[in-house]
């Protein structure tokens, strides 16, 4: 049973790190068309995430792969139940990734404008739908003995939508903070304005989200059992507040890290509420998918634990190193002059 708990934690960590990292590049993708006015500015915005988005997205692949390897039954049901939502996310991510690479390589305004739309749609749809999906998972899906009774539209219930909007707001602000520390000139000024402007709405939606969760589900049951855990959702709100505090003082890097901590804390809050479920059933608790009834065998979990303990720290180390090598602000002039930029 220890391995299942270990893997529950690892599962949560993988998703949380994914949202922390891809969160800012999704946010940047959503903001690009609004913060950047000229083509040079758009290229500047894209180039702030150019070297990173691909490596960030692998956290999603790894989260998916880890779900498959550690909790195959959950993987099977999670992905087939959420088929339409995942399909949209897939197409969005596909077009977005290709857009970064292709945008600068074609001819004419129309070409660029089409890829600009792809970048916006490809960034906002995953942000929204991941929020909707996780909101519904936290709340529980309608599963009973005969299977799943939901549709794409039943996922778009008020709570699911609230959760989607919350994710969008969170990533918008995360992206704006990233642009505030990675750009210079007018784009930087606009990004700084956006990040401090977005913080009140983010804190507002965070509070509504964390309050609303109390109603449709047993969200706070685990917190009632171990009241100290309430510190985690409080940390999420405090993180946003700290970010607000720091932006007001021009400490953009600190604000960005506070925002990172908040995203992790939000996901941790959700994961704590889920435990020991992975996908709770909203209509028949006997059919909830738990870490115990949907996990791989102890042998497989042991092998996967060894792999994860050996390699995940290495990945974190070299990704951290890459961020260090490519640190510093970019400028429109620099990006336009550099032949290797997007």
């Amino acid at each position: 049973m220890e391995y299942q708990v270990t893997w529950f934690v690892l599962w949560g960590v993988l998703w949380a790190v994914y949202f922390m990292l891809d969160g800012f590049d999704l946010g940047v993708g959503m903001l690009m068309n609004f913060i950047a006015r000229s083509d040079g500015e758009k290229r500047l915005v894209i180039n702030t995430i150019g070297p990173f988005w691909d490596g960030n997205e692998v956290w999603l692949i790894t989260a998916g792969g880890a779900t498959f390897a550690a909790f195959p039954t959950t993987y099977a049901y999670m992905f087939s139940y959420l088929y339409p939502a995942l399909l949209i996310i897939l197409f969005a991510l596909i077009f977005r990734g290709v857009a970064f690479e292709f945008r600068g390589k074609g001819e004419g305004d129309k070409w660029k404008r089409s890829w600009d739309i792809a970048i916006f749609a490809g960034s906002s749809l995953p942000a929204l739908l991941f929020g909707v999906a996780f909101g519904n998972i936290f709340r529980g899906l309608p599963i009973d003995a005969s299977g799943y009774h939901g549709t794409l539209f039943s996922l778009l219930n008020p709570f699911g939508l609230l959760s989607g909007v919350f994710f969008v707001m969170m990533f918008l602000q995360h992206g704006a903070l990233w642009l505030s520390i990675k750009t210079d000139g007018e784009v930087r000024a606009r990004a700084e304005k956006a990040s401090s402007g977005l913080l009140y709405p983010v804190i507002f939606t965070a509070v509504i989200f964390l309050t609303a969760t109390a109603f449709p589900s047993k969200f706070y049951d685990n917190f009632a059992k171990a009241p100290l855990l309430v510190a985690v959702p409080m940390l999420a709100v405090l993180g946003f507040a700290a970010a607000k505090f720091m932006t007001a003082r021009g400490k953009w890097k600190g604000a960005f890290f506070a925002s990172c901590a908040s995203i992790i804390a939000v996901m941790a809050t959700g994961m704590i509420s889920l435990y020991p479920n992975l996908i709770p059933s909203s209509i028949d608790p006997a059919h909830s998918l738990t870490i115990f009834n949907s996990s791989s065998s102890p042998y497989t979990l042991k092998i996967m634990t060894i792999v994860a303990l050996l390699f995940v720290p290495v990945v974190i180390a070299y990704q951290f190193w890459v961020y260090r090598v490519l640190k510093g602000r970019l400028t429109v002039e620099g990006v336009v002059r550099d032949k290797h930029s997007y």
Partner: protein
Amino acid sequence: MDALMLARLQFAVTCLFHFIFVPLTLGLSVMVAVMETLYVRRGEEKYLRMTKFWGKLFLINFALGVVTGITMEFQFGMNWAEYSKYVGDIFGAPLAIEATVAFFLESTFIGLWVFSWEKVSKKMHATFIWLVAFGTNMSALWILLANAWMQKPVGYVLRNGRAEMSDFGALVFNPYGWLKFLHTNLSGYVIAAFFVMGISAYHLLKKNETEFFRASFRIAAVFGFISSLGVAMVGDLNGQEVARYQPAKFAAMESHWETRKGAPMALLQVPLESEERNAVELIKIPKMLSILATHDPHAEIKGLKDIPKEDRPPVTITFFSFRIMVGLGTLFILLSGIALYLSLRNRLEGKTLFLRILLYSIPLPYIAAQLGWIVAEVGRQPWIVYGLMRTKDAISRNVSAGQVLVSLLLFTFFYGILGVVDIYLMYKFGKKGPEPLSLKAEV
């Protein structure tokens, strides 16, 4: 069409589309790494320009390979939930390991490689592309170990109503997987070599940047000839594994109906599946099939008639895919052999016809690779895991035919657009040729 057929079709479309981009990535990453290493070692600017020119084509291709790969991982759960549930305990592991040890490496360092030309030393920069090449090729290894498990399941026990892993070592050292890995990766190298030779041939015909493309051509010709030979040699070993572990697939590949010892092989053959025989069988080579299957001329080869109908794969498509693939593979040895000879003798430029043939040969190794996957996957039917689970038992129960139809149409439509855009960009930049050497664009 029912949900099963639609789901299979969708898997085929998304898988084959994904595999247009992956093999070029496998081979070109190594070739670009070789070029940059030559630059670091010899300091000649020619090699730097080569790295950048072929590197740009590599990146256009790489983007699509990455994004279409996400579909593959998601699809097991989306369309094949029963499969994922039944075999996830053992099949999920190599996929998760692939992401952790390989995909992270290539995706992280490709970004660093593109954006760090002026930030790190030359040596360090060349190391990055080697890490990308290593990650890409390791990624293929883990995916192919997963696929090999579907062809020849090893290291599992049936317990708790599913296949559970019992021996991780058996999964990792599945000989079927390593042969598949060599065969597939070498075929990717052939694709990359013909890609580079073809584009170089175009510019040599136009007398554009001859020195540059002569040198690119030579690297590709060496690479191509060795890989073409290798792919055939490993293919032969691969065939023997198939004959040993998947007799039905082997019989379908050869459209071999009657069980017999010392089986011959007809060079010209057309199967007539409905009547369980071949409509045409010409130029028979005695005992050849037995030799191919086991390297023993007297070995008994099981015929399709001795395999129950419900356990037989579709014969016609498997047979023709295999035959054409083998024919093309032979052609690649010939073409790359001539190419290498002419290149080493510096007699390439006068040979306009041969250069033109090479230009139009660019698609051929792609076709061969696609056919190879059709042989592997269609030939495995009706099983999703050979001998263990049937494809029809593997699909998601709660996903309707309508849902799959919609997603299949969307995949076809969107992938179609992306395919066209990709070919357009490859064509544009391939035709344009290398840029003058200066890190900064003129402002």
